[in-house]
């Protein structure tokens, strides 16, 4: 994967499949500490201790069609390569929190890439449930996006409409640019 946002797209689908009602995607750059923290927090079905121990292995998957599952191991490998750390906490029936930390200045850290495109793709894939919350911050600057607010403004329309998805991507791109102190 060439972009962090592609890892996010891949792994949030695990939360969707876990039946989450809310998935929070937290991306926090801390330039002073030279770290980037990516957290994916869901309230899905969770994993028991045995699966949790196994799931960072490429040879663990809940699918029955194949014997490999590469999403989690690839992000773990990347975090470790970037002098960071990877952790997963989960409770059956409560949800799962995935946490990946990277050294911001690591030469191996891929760019964030098209995060608005990732959000557009996630919402198209799961337009009704879960709700997605994106928290994007750099130091003290913060941008938050919540599909519940869009849903409320649209009065019950499906979010999986091309025009709505385009607006969402544009709105997120604008919010990210503000946090970074640039303009689109």
């Amino acid at each position, binding site marked *: 994967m060439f972009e962090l946002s592609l890892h996010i*797209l*891949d792994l949030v689908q695990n939360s969707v499949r876990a039946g989450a009602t809310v998935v929070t995607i937290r991306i926090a750059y801390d330039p002073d500490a030279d770290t980037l923290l990516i957290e994916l927090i869901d309230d899905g079905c969770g994993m028991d201790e045995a699966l949790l121990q196994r799931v960072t292995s490429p040879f663990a998957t809940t699918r029955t069609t194949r014997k490999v599952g590469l999403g989690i191991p690839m992000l773990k490998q990347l975090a470790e390569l970037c002098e960071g750390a990877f952790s997963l906490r989960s409770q059956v029936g409560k949800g799962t929190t995935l946490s990946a930390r990277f050294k911001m200045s690591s030469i191996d850290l891929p760019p964030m890439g098209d995060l608005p495109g990732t959000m557009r793709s996630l919402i*198209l894939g799961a337009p009704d449930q879960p709700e997605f919350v994106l928290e994007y911050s750099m130091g003290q600057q913060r941008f938050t996006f919540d599909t519940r607010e*869009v849903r409320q403004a*649209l009065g019950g329309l499906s979010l999986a409409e091309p025009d709505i998805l385009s607006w969402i991507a544009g709105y997120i791109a604008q919010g990210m640019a503000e946090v970074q102190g640039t303009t689109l």
Partner: protein
Amino acid sequence: MKSFADLEAIRQKTLDKVNLRREHEGTRIVVGMATCGIAAGARPVMLAFLDEVSKRNLLDVTVAQTGCIGMCRLEPIVEISVPGQDKVTYVKVAPEMVPRIVQEHVVNHNPVDEYTIGAAE
């Protein structure tokens, strides 16, 4: 500047489209978006289909996603079903191929044979 105030206009426009669409059985464009697809470049392909469908204002076309189709080495894979025709599977799809697939297959109902799994295998 994008703001939540834009959504009211989008809502009105979309409602009209949704009502029109109810009268048709539409074409489905399904993009494989598991780890294998994503790593091979499925996200820009899916977004290109969304943009092309939106640009041409094709009301009876839906773009959807699915998991791993089982042929990871041929990703990104896109399946297109036009009502009344056999489903066509495109393999190793790149965003540059999308406008031609939409024009020839989705609009004019002539599959682009050279991009299909039959041509690749």
